[in-house]
């Protein structure tokens, strides 16, 4: 592991060990190199071939003008927004329910609620494909006008996102002081007022980070979308999948870069929102 300690280096100062520092640096490099190359090539002049020709911004307006990429992007964002709304409400409600009540078969209920998180995505994807086809829902929704033709994807996304929201909100609720609720009732607030004016404000950081989690999960999802989307309802990840199969143009790099920026902003925002809570304890 390590040799002699250098002068002035304590036995527990692992943060100053050279080999740990180098491993950390090399891992970061390996993690970011492919992404950096992808972003760099979104500014490449030559449209194919993997060789750097020169700097240009042209790929961005091209990606914007490419109807199929644009549609896929709009679909992805629409699905993510609607999914986030539903998953956040449903997930928060069930989190409050599981936090507040004792009921028969609770462990089994909790296990079932955790199942969408733990089973392989491909299993959930094919199960939903079978279900939507067997019930005729797939055919029904795919004939509707936009955005209702996205319904099968949205339904599937809500199903795998709300358990994540429930977990995040419930872990926030653990720290809630129940006396606040009692005080509110004593002071004459009814149950509904107590819920809205005491519990919801307390849950707010949890709800927000749960919502951002749902948003990124939905925006990110490829596997379940792949199985539940029709030919007319292509999302951005599914679009990249087919473009990679046929050979890629740098417009995809441009569109990917935009998506990366959106995701990073959402993540950093989520972390910012959570950070003061931690130090507050």
């Amino acid at each position, binding site marked *: 592991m390590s040799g002699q300690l250098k002068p002035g280096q304590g*036995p527990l100062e*692992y943060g100053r060990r050279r080999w740990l520092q180098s491993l950390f640096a090399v891992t970061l490099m390996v*993690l970011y190199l492919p992404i950096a190359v992808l972003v760099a090539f979104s500014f490449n002049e030559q449209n194919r071939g993997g060789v750097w020709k020169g700097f240009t911004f042209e790929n961005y307006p091209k990606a914007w003008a490419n109807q199929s990429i644009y549609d896929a992007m709009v679909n992805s964002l629409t699905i993510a927004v609607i999914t986030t709304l539903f998953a956040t409400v449903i997930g928060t409600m069930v989190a409050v*329910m599981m936090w507040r*009540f004792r009921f028969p078969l609770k462990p089994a209920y909790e296990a079932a609620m955790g199942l969408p998180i733990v*089973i392989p995505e*491909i*299993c959930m994807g094919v199960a939903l494909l079978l279900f939507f086809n067997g019930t005729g829902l797939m055919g029904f929704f795919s004939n509707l006008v936009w955005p209702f033709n996205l319904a099968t994807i949205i339904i599937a996304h809500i199903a795998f996102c709300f358990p994540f929201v429930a977990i995040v909100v419930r872990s926030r609720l653990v720290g809630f002081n129940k006396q606040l609720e009692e005080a509110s009732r004593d002071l004459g607030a009814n149950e509904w007022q107590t819920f809205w004016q005491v519990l919801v404000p307390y849950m707010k950081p949890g709800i927000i980070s749960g919502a951002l989690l749902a948003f990124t999960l939905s925006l990110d999802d490829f596997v379940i979308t792949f*199985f539940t989307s029709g030919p007319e309802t292509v999302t951005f990840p599914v679009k990249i999948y087919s473009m990679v199969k046929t050979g890629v143009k740098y417009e995809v790099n441009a569109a990917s870069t935009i998506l990366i920026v959106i995701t990073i902003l959402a993540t950093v925002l989520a972390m910012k929102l959570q950070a003061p809570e931690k130090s507050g304890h």
Partner: protein
Amino acid sequence: MEDWKSNSRAFWTLATPATLWLLAFFLIPLAYLLALSFSSKALVNGEVSINDYDYFTGVANYIRAINPDIISIFLRTLWWSALATLACLLIGYPIAFSICFMPERWRPLALLLIVLPFWINLLIRTYALKTVMGARGVVNSALGLVGIGPVEMIGTTGAVIFGLVYVFLPFMILPLYSTIERLDKSYLEASLDLGASQFQTFWKVTLPLTMPGIITGVILVFIPCLGMFLISDELGGTTSWMIGNVIQAQFGASNDWPFGSALSFALMLLTIIVLVMQWYYQNRSKGAH
């Protein structure tokens, strides 16, 4: 905690949407998958129908799955997932460790840098990796400068396992970080003071105390690896199929949904076995305290 009967109106209001959604769009689809795995394609006028099924015709699909090809793909999936998980552990542990021992103001940034790629779309990362590892990619260009190559990476087993590690490493580091951070450092000091070497301290104190984090990390990496088909599809060749690829093919080109359902159910069972093993281990170690 209240009993649900004490305020059943609130209970049902809060419980109904999630329960219905879970039932209708998760549990019933899974039940349907299970039913279809025991079914076969219907014969209509003596011809095999494309999308009509005779339900509950027997276990023929499962018997079909017990053939050397499918079993070897299952074993390969397990083996590759295990290798990728081990690699994630060997790389992730020292990294989580070094983040925990960084000056406090650097820790959030270091953690963010490690976790950020995980939030970037899986498909974008796979595509990025494919570009970098390609015959004319950055890695081969760099190797070319020192007179090596081009090395063919895409299509090899190594590329698939590297891809799995690349994609799932943050899943390993996060639980390890949170366990090592909570570890009471005075145990390590005590062990070193009492004359144990760094290695002994690690092996006999640090490792056992951080075992819960290791187990969580292993589960979080191993299970998604089992169901992965994207990485093996993009970075591997036709000879490097994992079970996910076989399942995907049944619902695509091969169009054999009952067989695909049987394979999916087998994969799900495998996952649940892994989870039960973890649960059993955790309960046992809790009992030992």
